[in-house]
């Protein structure tokens, strides 16, 4: 099973990020989430979702989903694409484990109010 993200359904509400944070910290916090609503381009209304997986980074942009090897976003950003500041700490976070030890999991799927995240 894997996580699938439909960035066009996403409204940037960050519920997934908080749900993942709860899985990591047993409380509400955002620092350890492996799924993040990127929102640094607020004035451009350009937002989507980043998911850190074991081997790569899933980047759900409005125009489509992209998969990058870990480190690629920092070291070799795709031509013409500006780096996203929120991508940097992702490299320091634990990868998605699909909330394997939780009865409710994956928490990001359960708590997305817009069903933008699903099982693939």
């Amino acid at each position: 099973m894997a996580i699938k993200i439909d960035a066009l359904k996403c409204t940037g509400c960050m519920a997934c990020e908080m749900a993942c944070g709860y899985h990591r910290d047993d409380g509400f916090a955002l620092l350890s989430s492996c799924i993040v609503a990127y929102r640094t381009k607020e004035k451009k209304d350009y937002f989507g979702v980043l998911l850190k997986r074991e081997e790569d980074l899933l980047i759900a942009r409005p125009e489509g989903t992209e998969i990058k090897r870990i480190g690629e976003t920092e070291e070799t950003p795709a031509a013409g694409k500006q780096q996203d500041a929120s991508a940097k700490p992702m490299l320091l976070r634990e990868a998605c484990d699909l909330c394997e030890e939780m009865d409710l999991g994956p928490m990001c799927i359960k708590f997305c109010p817009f069903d933008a995240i699903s099982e693939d």
Partner: protein
Amino acid sequence: MEYLSANKILVVDLASAEVTDDELSDELVGEKIGGAAVAKHLYEQHADGDPIVIGTGLLTGTLFPAAAAGVITAKSPVTGKISHCPITLKVGLEIQYSGFDYIVIKGKSPEPAFLWIHDGVADISSAADVWGKNVWETTDTWRKAMGDDLIQTIVIGKAGEDQSDLAQVCYNYWASGDRWGFGKNFGAKNLKGLAFRGMGLLEMADAEEFVELALDVLEEVKEGEFVSKKGIGDICTAIGESDINAWLAPIVHRHSACYNTPYATNTFVFLDEDAKKLTEPEHPEPGFLITDIFGLIGFKKIGLSAVEAGNLLKACAKYGIDAAAVAELSLATGKKTLAEIQGSFATLVGAVTRPGSGIFSPWCPNQPLFGKFDDAGDDPTAWWERRMAVASIFGIHPILAVMSPEITEDDLLEIATVGTEVEFSQDTLDNAVNYLLK
């Protein structure tokens, strides 16, 4: 207060530059619960300093559906009443994790200042470099200075600095629910605004039970009447302004939601690029996020095109002026063009309609939206005031509160008790609501 709390009330005296913090006591939470009720209590406690109180609801920033809202409580310079303005978008969330539950700001700074609040630290900093700058420039300046584009701001523009009765505090770049002239309160204190960033942790007394209850409510909410609707246009339709949607549609880019809110109450319109474009815009400021239902409706009634209305809403937000009031006064005085209206910001005065009793912001429609509320029929005004009071105590997005009957007082009391180990009864809530409404 051990759970769902940073256990800190920040008290800032701008006159003396003294910053202190108090604990948030279990007794106060047990009596007033949170949000606007605690903020009003703190307002009264510090009334001699003409305070502005900023706070979060008991559930703000949690996984309970629509737990997005914070609150600004102050005496409105236009009504003379202690009033409350919801804090939306991601600003309430950021306050919750910045290390303080409530912030009391009293006194007047001798020089322009702003508060930089981050990870349990509060600094009074000089705003000399941004005094005179508009809302957008100020947020950009602070984000750049702190090196963090995720900093959330509450900020005034020229209208607040000039202490206009129509001055509105803005959130980051966008309009807020401040229909009370709180921007004038900020200006009178020489307070340009606040910047928030935090990486805090909220603990719960029974985390597992809390999360399961939140999920149960979310699943019910997702079955609600509003699920097929989105954006500000559908809200306009629900309140009888059905021609807004088609008028706005050509420039709608995307809809976005406030933190963990199951309805996208905000609509971004592109004014300088193709709205259907999905890739990152080339223009650094291609449009505007519409968060103000009645400002939008008002500008349409004047006869502006959707693009003109979007540009005027953007101009209002940069200037930090209440767009709904601008629309009402412009209509009354026969101003019809974008240039004419924008040119009148500095001199615009007059009485403005503010439905309700002057306690909760009429920025939120005063009727049920989409959903059917069994108790809304007999006395719609009383129903709305109570719904606003309850939402403001727990930190629920006010628009979701009038949209989702699935979010009940019983749900809120139960999850609050599970989260905090404080026994909240219906009597506790009734007392807190009555305290707000008296």
